[in-house]
Every structure is written in C-alpha cells, then in structure tokens.
C-alpha cells in the first residue's frame, strides 16, 4: 500500500482555553490535489502549522510521506513545502539570494540545484526580477517568490495556504497554470482558499473543517451531491408584483419577470411550485434549474444552513 503524502491521527491542539483542533484524522494520497476548506478560525492554519513543524500538537500524530513531524522532522520537512498565507521576506536580500539561502537551509548546493533555482525563476516569471531587492517587488511578485521558496528543495508535498489572496486576476490565472503543472509532475498539492470556485475547479478531494473538526471529507462530486438545495429560476410573462405566500420562504431573488427559488431536494417538487405560481395568475414563460455549487455545500456544512 503506498505511503500517504499526509497522514494525521487524533490531532488535538489547545491554545490556552481555545480548543483549536479536536481530533483530526486525515489521509491525503500521494499525487492528490486536495482542498482544505473552512471558515476563519476552523483550524486550517493550526493544522498546516503542525504539519510544517511550526506548532507542536497537544495530542495525536502527523506524518509527511511516512515521516513523523516530530520524531523524524528532518525528513518530514524535506518532503514538505509550505507557501504561507502572509507575505514574509527578508528585506535586505535579492530574489536570487533568498532562494540560495533557502536552498542552503536544506543542505542543497551545486550546479544541479543552481539550475533548478533558475528553472523556478523562469517558471514563475521572476527572471527579470531575480537580482532585484525584495522590497522593490510588487505584492504579486513577492507571492511568486514565496512559492519559489517553498519549492526550492523539490518537496513531494506542497501546501498552498491561500496563495491567491489579494492577487490580481491575471497573476492568479498564471499561478494556477504553474500549480497545475506541479500537480501533473507528480507533486501532492494541498490547497486552502477562500475562493471556493478555485477549489471546485482544481481539487480531487476536499475536506471541510469546522470548529477544529472535519465536518466533511469526500471526493468533490460526492460532496456536491450532498447539497440538499438546488435553485429554480422561473420567468413569467407578467411582472412579478408579489410572490405567492406558499413560496415566500424559498425566495432567493426577485426581478421584474423573474423569481429565483431555493428548493429542498427531498421536499419541494417543481410541478407543485409551478402550479402555485399559475394559481397566483402568472404565466410561465421559461424555467431553469441549477445544482448547488461548492459554496452552497460549504455554507450548509459550516453554517448549518437548512
């Protein structure tokens, strides 16, 4: 059986009276593109910090590629690259120097590693800025340097902690092209993001953390099927003056000739809804249904939306 890229068992973390993680069991297979989602304060960063060796778990175990993060921390950290959420940098060094120093921390030297660093600079479109001081770079450029830093030791597992936060659309697109390439090359990618459409588009499996526990962990399609609501959009010939009383609790949006309703899959029937509208004097011109997206599943799971 292949060794999982990330494995945790019963991870607990207390910060004083705050119980940040409450027994997290997680297994991410090698080569997977995994999404780690959750509202602020759910415990995502704590989990990542434990995996990266920045925080020690109060209880439980964690392994990266089979190496315990505490007892075999050298090899676990060799196997892991973390792109932090915050933009952190040494203000006095150039991009090239920062990458060389970071490689030095991993004991890497020699022409082969020099070539890899140059490849990274090229892939992340940093060649022109390689000798520029970090202070002179834009926020997006700094974010690219952080990604290069995390990859400088060619880790098998890459954790991206909200890598596109505050990044413009063009840069975000180029970052995803690069990250997809990394995944195609066999790296295991763990992504945390607040842009759920990104997670929906990229991840094979998704875990949703809530209050320090895993509220859901499944393949993306299975997770989407969990949604209990779907959206029905009805276009009417008449102007929508008032929504019939039986439908008012389902209204998401009302426009002049259109009403958008949130239907509970197991309870509401579309013919019944249409009949209610017809009875109220509306002529149905068009209708469309839309399945829930990840955002709705996320809200249902994290906010307990009915």
């Amino acid at each position, binding site marked *: 059986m292949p060794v999982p890229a990330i494995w945790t068992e019963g991870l607990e*973390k207390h*910060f*004083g009276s705050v119980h940040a993680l409450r027994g997290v069991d997680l297994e991410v297979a090698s080569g997977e593109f995994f999404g780690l989602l959750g509202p602020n304060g759910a415990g995502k960063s704590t989990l990542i*910090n434990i995996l*990266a*060796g*920045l*925080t*020690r778990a109060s209880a439980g175990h964690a392994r990266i590629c089979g190496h315990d993060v505490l007892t075999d*921390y*050298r*090899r676990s*950290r*060799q196997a*892991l690259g*973390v792109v*932090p959420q*915050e933009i*952190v*940098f*040494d*203000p*006095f*060094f150039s991009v090239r120097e920062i990458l060389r*120093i*970071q490689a*030095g*921390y*991993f*004991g890497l030297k020699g022409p082969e590693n020099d070539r890899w660093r140059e490849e990274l600079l090229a892939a992340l479109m940093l060649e022109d800025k390689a000798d520029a001081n970090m202070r002179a770079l834009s926020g997006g450029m700094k974010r690219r340097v952080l990604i290069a*830093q995390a990859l400088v030791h060619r880790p098998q597992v890459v954790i991206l902690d909200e890598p596109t936060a505050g990044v413009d659309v063009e840069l975000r697109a180029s970052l995803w092209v690069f990250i997809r390439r990394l995944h195609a090359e066999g790296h295991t990618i763990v992504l945390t993001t607040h842009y759920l459409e990104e997670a929906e588009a990229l991840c094979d499996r998704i875990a949703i953390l809530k209050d320090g526990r895993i509220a859901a962990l499944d393949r993306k399609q299975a997770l989407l099927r969990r949604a209990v609501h779907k959206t029905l959009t009805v276009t009417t010939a008449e102007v929508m003056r008032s929504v019939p009383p039986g439908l008012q609790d389902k209204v998401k949006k009302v426009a002049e000739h259109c009403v958008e309703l949130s239907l509970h899959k197991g309870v509401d029937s579309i013919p019944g809804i249409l009949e209610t509208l017809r009875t109220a004097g509306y002529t149905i011109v068009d209708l469309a249904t839309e399945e829930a997206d990840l955002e709705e599943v996320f809200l249902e799971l994290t906010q307990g939306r009915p």
Partner: protein
Amino acid sequence: MIFVIARRELRNLFLSPLAWIVLGIVQLIMGFLFLSHVNLFLQVEPRLPMIHNAPGLTGLIAAPTLGNAAVLMLLIAPIITMRVVAEERRNHTLTLLYTAPVSRLTIVLGKYLGVLAFFLLIVALTVLMPLSLLVGGHLDLGMLACGTLGLVLLIMSFAAVGLFMSTLTTHPTLAAISTFGVLFLFWIIDWAGRSHGTAGSVVAYLSALNHYEPFLRGLFDTSALSYYLFVTAAFLGLSVRRLDADRVGA
C-alpha cells in the same frame, strides 16, 4: 547548516547600514583612545628607565586599549544583537527557518556565530592598533594575545546574552535595552560586592569585569575562562529553550 545560517546572519548585518555605522564609529573612538594612550606613553617614556620593573608599550598602550574596547563592546553588543531574532520574529521570517530541516540548536548556533564573526572583526581591527606599534617598538606578544583572548571571551558572553534577549521579544529596541541592562548589571555587580564581606565577594564573582582584568595583566585564568564559557553556554541554552517554546505555541 550552522554555517549557512551564520553566513546569512553576517551578510544580513552588512546589508544594513547599521553594521557599517557601528564599525565606523567603533574604529573612530578606538583610534582616538589608542592615540591618547600613545600620547600618554610618550609623555612618561623619559621617566620609565628610572622605575624598577616599569611597564612597557604593551602595559601602557595595548592593555588600556583592550580595556577601553571592552567598555565599548558593552555599548555596541546590544545594538548588534537586538535584531538577530526579534526582527525576524516581527517580520515572520523566522517561520522560513522553522520549516527547514534544522534544529533549534542549529538555528541558535548559526545566528550566534554570525554575530560573533562581526564582533571578531571588531576585535581584529582593534588589535591591529597595538600591533602597529611593532613597526617602531617592542611588544609583549604573549600579554597582548592573553588580553585579546580575554576580550574575545567577554564578547562571546555578551553576544550570547544579546541573542537570548532578542529571542524574548518582537521589538529590537526592547531587546537592545534589556541586553544593555543585563550586561551593565554583570559589569557593576562588582561594586556591590566590594563592601559586603563574604556574601559580597560571591556576588562580585559574577562580575564580567572581574574576570576580564587578569587577561589584561597577561594572566591566563582558567577560572575566568570557565566563567565566560559557562555564561555563554547558559544563555545559548536559554535561547534554544525560548525558540522551542515558539513551537509549543503556548
């Protein structure tokens, strides 16, 4: 890995204007003090043959110059060490080191050796001044070497204290002030000891100055050597413990 961290630390120092300013000011002050001692020597030189066992160039110029250097180190050690960990913690760049496969001990030793290299450069430049007297005079090289060793040991302990203080805070200025406070206490604790009998002499033993003086007289004092090595090891050990506490995240 220790040397990678040390090299980065030293380079970081020289990439900021602070190190250059400190080097310039120290050389200016030490040059002034050295010339003052030379001038004083020239004034008393005609009377020296009349004194039995009179001190030579080393005793009258080199030793006081190294003594002055120690006082100056008391002032610059806090400035040089204040940023070592405090600023990295403030900028969150310490996490880049924490996620690398290096132990906390390696981090502390690397950073320590980096700042120590800077201080050794200052010592080397300082010692060059008395050594320049070899051009036209005779020096007791053994005494000079002993004094230099004393200064190096003193600086080793100062740098360790400064490094530890820097691990305690995210504000470099606070680290500098607290380092100066601790070093000054280590310096003046000797005064308290002078007037309080046996208990006072125990307290006076803790004085960094007391252990430096034998070296300036050309005495290789193993008790003083042990004292400096103990202080250095103790504060480096405390620094490792402090960095490890970051990981516990209490």
